[in-house]
C-alpha cells in the first residue's frame, strides 16, 4: 500500500512549510463529509502519531493515518495550475464517483 507525490507538489509543500516556520510534514487523509460522502484532508502536520504511516518524497514527509490509507492507496498528489487557480490535486484510483466540483468523492 502506498501513495506518491510529484516533485512539483513536494517542492511547493516544502516552500509552504518553510514559510510557515514550523511543521514536520504534510498530513493527508480522508474525512466523511460533503455531497458525495468523503472529502480529502490536506493539512500541515506538527506531530506524527504512533500508528501513522510516514512516506517521504523529495525530502518531504507525508503522513497518513492507517484508516485513510485504505482510501488513498495508489493516490498521486500533484500540484497544478488551472487558469488563475493553483493547488493540490489528488489522482486517486479508488475514486469511483465524485460530485460535480470534485471536492468530495465516493469509493
Amino acid at each position, binding site marked *: 500500500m502506498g501513495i506518491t507525490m510529484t516533485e512539483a507538489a513536494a517542492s511547493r509543500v516544502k516552500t509552504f512549510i518553510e514559510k510557515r516556520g514550523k511543521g514536520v510534514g504534510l498530513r493527508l487523509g480522508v474525512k466523511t463529509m460533503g455531497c458525495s460522502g468523503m472529502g480529502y484532508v490536506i*493539512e500541515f502536520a506538527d506531530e506524527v502519531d504512533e500508528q501513522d504511516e510516514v512516506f517521504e518524497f523529495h525530502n518531504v514527509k507525508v503522513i497518513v493515518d492507517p484508516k485513510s490509507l485504505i482510501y488513498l492507496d495508489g493516490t498521486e498528489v500533484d500540484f497544478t495550475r488551472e487558469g488563475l487557480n493553483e493547488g493540490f490535486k489528488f489522482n486517486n484510483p479508488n475514486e469511483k464517483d465524485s*460530485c460535480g466540483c*470534485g471536492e468530495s468523492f465516493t469509493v
Partner: protein
Amino acid sequence: MALLQISEPGMTSAPHQHRLAAGIDLGTTHSLVATVRSGSADTLADSQQQHLLPSVVHYSKDRPPLVGLEALAKANKDPLNTLASVKRLMGRGQNDLATIDGHLPYQFAETDSSVPRIQTVAGAVSAIEVSAEILKALRQRAEDSLGDILSGVVITVPAYFDDAQREATRDAAKLANLTVYRLINEPTAAAIAYGLDQQTSGTIAVYDLGGGTFDISILRLSKGVFEVLSTGGNSALGGDDFDYAIAEWILQQLPNAVADDQALLRQCLTLARQAKETLSHHETTEITLDHWQGTLSRTNFEALIAPLVKKTLSSCRRALRDAKLNKDEIDDVILVGGSTRVPSVREAVNAFFERTAHSKLDPDKVVAIGAARQADILAGNKPDQEMLLLDVIPLSLGIEMMGGLVDKVIHRNTAIPITRAQEFTTFKDGQTALSIHILQGERETVETNRSLGKFVLHGIPPMVAGAARIKVTFQVDADGLLNVDAQELTTGTRSNIEIKPSYGLTDNEIETMLRSSIDNAQDDVELRSLREQQIEARRTLEALNAAMESDDETLLSEEERQQLYAGHSELAATCKTSEDSEVIKAAIKKLEKSAEFYVERRMNSSVKKAMAGQQINDI
C-alpha cells in the same frame, strides 16, 4: 477535480464550506488583492501576471466600465471619462472639494446631494461607485484564482481616514457585493505583514511613499492592540514627482525644447519612469529621445529628488514630535510603497531613524499581504486565535449636556470594538423628550467639538426633573462605525442612530483638534466649571419656581414669598452677568440658605399629607 490548499492542523473545511478570505489594498494609484493559500500570504496576479491593478476606471456609453490597465490606456484620449485617484474624494462632501490636495481634472456634476458626483458619458458617478468598480475587478480576480466565492474581505484604509471616509469605503464594498470583515489601517496591515503583531509590544514607524501620496504613521503595539500615535505626510507628494524631476531635467538638456509641449512632456515622463527604475539597480542609465542622447547617473538623480526626500523626512520629524517620541524610541521602521525601492530613499530613511528599515517584502504588496493575513484569521482559518487585532478610536465620542458641555462617553484611544453606556436624566419637570447630540473631539464644549449627529428620544413619561433614567449606549464596531442607542428605562422606549457623518475630517484637522484640546486645557476646565455652575443655578431657580407654583398660599406668607422672589431674581441676575463660577456658586448657596425654611415646611407638609388618615401601624 477541485484544487486543494493545505490547511492548518484540524482546520480542514468540509467541501463547499471554504472560508475564502482576501485582503484588499484599495490605493490611490494602484490596488491589490492578496490571500492566504496553504499558509502563505501573497498577492494575486491577473492573467497577464500583473499584480498591481491601476485604480483607474473608464466609463463609456454602451459598455460596462473598464478597470485597470485597459482604463489607463484611455486616459490620454478620453481624460474626462477616465477616472483616477478617486480615493481622494471618498467620504468627502461638496464643501470639501476645495480643500483636497492634488489636481482632480474632472467635471463635477451639478447635484443636490452632498456627495460630489463626476460627470461621465455613462452618467454622473460618485467616488463610491468608482471604487466599487475597482473592488469588483479585484473580487473577480480573487474568485478566479481561488476557484470559489469569497466569503469576506479585509480592506485597508489610511490611518487618518475618518468615519465618513471609512463608511464610504464600506459602501463601495457593499456595491461590489463584498462582505467586509473589517477595515484596518494601512500601516497596521504593513506591520502585520512583517509579523510584528506577534510581538508583545513595540513602537513602529511606517514610511509609505506611493505614486502620488506620502504617509508616515507612528504605531504603538501593546497586548495585541495597535494604536495610532500620530500620522503625517503629504497627499500630493510621491514617486510621480520623482518622474517629473527627471522629466524636467531631460527637458533642460534638450537643445530646442518648446515650453508647454504636452506630448513631449508625456514622452519625457515615460522615459523618466524607466530611468528611475533602472537606477534602482544600476549606477547610470542612458536616455534617448529623438536625436538627443544623455546619461543620468544615480548621483544626479539623487540630487534631483533630494528636496523631495527631505520633505518626507520633515514630515517624519513632525510625526515623531506629535507622538512625543524620540527617534531612539522607535523599535521598527517599515517601508511601504513602490517609491521606497529608490536606494537613496531607503538610505535617507535608515539614516533618519538610525536603524535599518524592514524592506524584505515587496513594498507594493506589503499592505495587501497584511490585510490577507488578517482576513484569513477573521474567516476562522487559524486554529487558536493567534491574534484578534484591535484598533483604537482616534477622537473621543460624547454627548451634549445642558449648557453646551460635552460629556465623553468613549475616550480616545479606546480599543474597538467597544460598547459603553451612561445614564442621563431629564432637566425639567414633565419633560417627555430628550435630544441626543453626539459629538467627537477632545474639547469640553459643543462649539469646539465636531457634531456627528442628533436624534430625539420621545415618549419619556412625565416625571419630576431628574427622576427619569435614560440609558445612552455608544457602540463602536470593529470598523470604527458608531451606533448610539437611547432607552428610557422605566418604559423601555428607545431610539437610535447610526452615525454616517456627511463630511470628513482630514488628518490635519484631527491633529488640530487634539492639539487645541491640549493648548486650551486650562480654559476648558474653567469654562466647564462656569457652565456647570450656570446649569446648577438654573436647576435651583427651576425647582424653586416649580415649588412655589404648585404650593397653595398657606405655606408662605406674602412677605416670605416676596423675599424668595427677590432671592430668585438676584441669582438669575448673577448667573447672567457673572463669568466667575465661584461667584455663581456663592449666589446659589445664598439662595438655598434663604430658602431653607421653605424646603423644611414643604417637607413637613408633604409628610403630613402622606400620613393623613393612616393608622400608625400602616406606615
